[in-house]
């Protein structure tokens, strides 16, 4: 698996997609820092961007990479390598090259502006972490969808739909159900519902950094316990990691059973 990962990563790190993706973040972050000259403001702006862009690009890129390397995958399958190693290796190659683009693209300008040692270091670390995790989660989901669908158009469509679902539709449905069910206690429901969506989960990690004052306005004890203590933070981290493991496990399963 590590061998496959190594060569996938070599391949991807030289692709112009990776360059333009990393370059975009680099330019974007630099221009934000240049314009505002205020680390905390830029961290906040990027926190909004990371929730939107990292999942979208990871989804697109994951699907694209899978379909593009379809024939090469066949060649690899004829090699004395375990099947699942091939797919996990390729997936990790995609996820890590995306993460590298993100971390370098955003990290370099911030490092130039001296984020380390400033009071924003914690928030910045959270920002990088969330970006990396979202890249891993959504490229895994994309790989899974691509593995399940031989038809490229269908695969692309489903992957976009999956992104749209997690990024927008899910929250819309959640808001709708919350406002329809106001008579019922909704604390646990809304918390659990947020845990079930990796984007919401990352968003809550960010909220805990930026909006803790507002979050403390919740009346319910469950909320206060969850959001007000390290307990909530650790649960959120745990479930987020689970969100990486789960699609990877699915990839493994499908890859083991699929005909090529």
């Amino acid at each position, binding site marked *: 698996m590590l061998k496959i990962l190594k060569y996938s990563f070599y391949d991807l790190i030289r692709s112009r997609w990776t360059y333009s993706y990393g370059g975009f973040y680099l330019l974007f972050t630099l221009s934000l820092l240049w314009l505002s000259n205020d680390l905390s403001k830029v961290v906040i702006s990027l926190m909004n961007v990371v929730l939107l862009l990292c999942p979208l690009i990871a989804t697109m890129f994951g699907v694209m990479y899978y379909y593009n390397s379809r024939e090469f995958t066949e060649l690899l399958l004829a090699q004395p390598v375990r099947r699942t190693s091939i797919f996990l290796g390729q997936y990790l190659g995609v996820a890590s090259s995306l993460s590298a683009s993100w971390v370098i693209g955003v990290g370099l300008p911030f490092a130039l502006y001296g984020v380390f040692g400033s009071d924003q270091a914690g928030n910045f670390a959270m920002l990088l972490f969330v970006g990396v995790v979202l890249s891993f989660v959504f490229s895994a989901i994309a790989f899974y969808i691509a593995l399940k669908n031989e038809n490229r158009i269908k695969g692309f469509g489903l992957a976009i739909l999956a992104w749209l679902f997690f990024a927008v539709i899910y929250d819309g449905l959640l808001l709708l159900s919350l406002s329809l069910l106001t008579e019922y206690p909704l604390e646990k429901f809304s918390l659990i519902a947020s845990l079930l969506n990796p*984007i919401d989960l990352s968003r809550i990690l960010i909220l805990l950094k930026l909006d803790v*004052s507002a979050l403390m*306005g919740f009346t319910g004890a469950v909320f206060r316990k969850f959001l007000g203590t390290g307990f909530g933070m650790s649960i959120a981290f745990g479930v987020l990691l689970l969100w990486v493991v789960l699609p990877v496990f699915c990839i493994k399963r499908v890859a083991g059973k699929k005909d090529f």
Partner: protein
Amino acid sequence: MFRWIFISTLILAGQAVILANTFRVCKACPAFSIKEAIKVAKSCDTIYVESGIYTEGNIVIDKELTLIGIGRPILDGEGKTEIITIAANHVHFEGFVIRNVGISYSQDRAGIRVKEASDFYVKNNRVENAFFGIYLQKSRNGTIEGNEMVGEAKDEVSSGNAIHLWYCDNVLIINNITYGHRDGIYLEFVNFSTVQGNHSERNVRYGLHFMFSNDDVYRGNTFLDNGAGVAVMYSRRIGMFSNVFQKNWGPAAYGLLLKEIHDSNIEGNTFQENTVGIFAETSNRIVYTKNNFIQNGWALKISGGCQQNNLLANNFLGNSFDLAVHSAGTDNLFDGNFWSDYAGYDLDKNGIGDVPHRPMKLFSYVVSNTPESLVLLRSLFVDILNFSEKVSPIFTPENVVDNKPLLKKFTIYD
């Protein structure tokens, strides 16, 4: 010390006819109890109490006396009684540690009580583990200065207020520190008084609490991590200047709670990291100006029935919600503020945005109906909702709008 001799001299000068004596209270002194010293002393005398622990129960000061503790003598109530009762005019009480008053559910026991007195001066005392710290009733023209009240209140029922005023006029409460009581400073039927430079922290209810009090001013105080910072209720003409309201977190936690307050000014204050910066209910003719609202959950919540409020030249910086207005009300003005999420432009370069700003977001309205939906804050879906509402307001009151939003932060001291 030197200063005290000087002031005593002034008092002496004021009552030149009578020659004042001084007494000492200590273990080796002729008078070894405070009560005894008070008994033999005459008006205008001074009693110096040296360090040591005194357990004399309730000490009543019923003459015009000056009591000064030297080396912080400790008056211990052993959890049984009230300790100092000032029941005469012109009493000066300074430099004591008063502790262990004991909780009573039948009487409002206090560390220091000022009872129907005037021209009192209570200074630099420390009150520990008291039910009420300093309790003033029907008193006037006095000063409470530099005292420190330390309690460990757990809930509202079993705790008293650190500084409690009831039917008082013209009192100056200055540079005191209160921790862990029910209210840090409580004023009921108190007029023409000033609360200045105090620090209230970790009180279970309010840092400062006004009830039925008019024509008072509080300025330069800090309210940190209380149940709510300051509550001003059923009062008129209160000036609130240059205070700091910080980290008042919780479901009913406000930096400042206004309830039926009229004709008041809120100026130059800083509201930082509170769940709600200011919550105003049925409050009319209030001017909010030059305040900083920084990273609060809600900077300002205005519920129904608030009229002719003017919100002018304030800074709103990084709050989760800047403004939540329940119903539009009438004649409220929101002009000339700086909103950190203002997205307009200024083509004519006059420092004022060319596009009006709507500080009330649709999501703010949604959250007020369904609090749990707060978990969706900053989600793309919510941004889309807010945007569509901004383009054509349906749910949010149309007259909640800043027609002259500032492009740069308003700097208060420049």
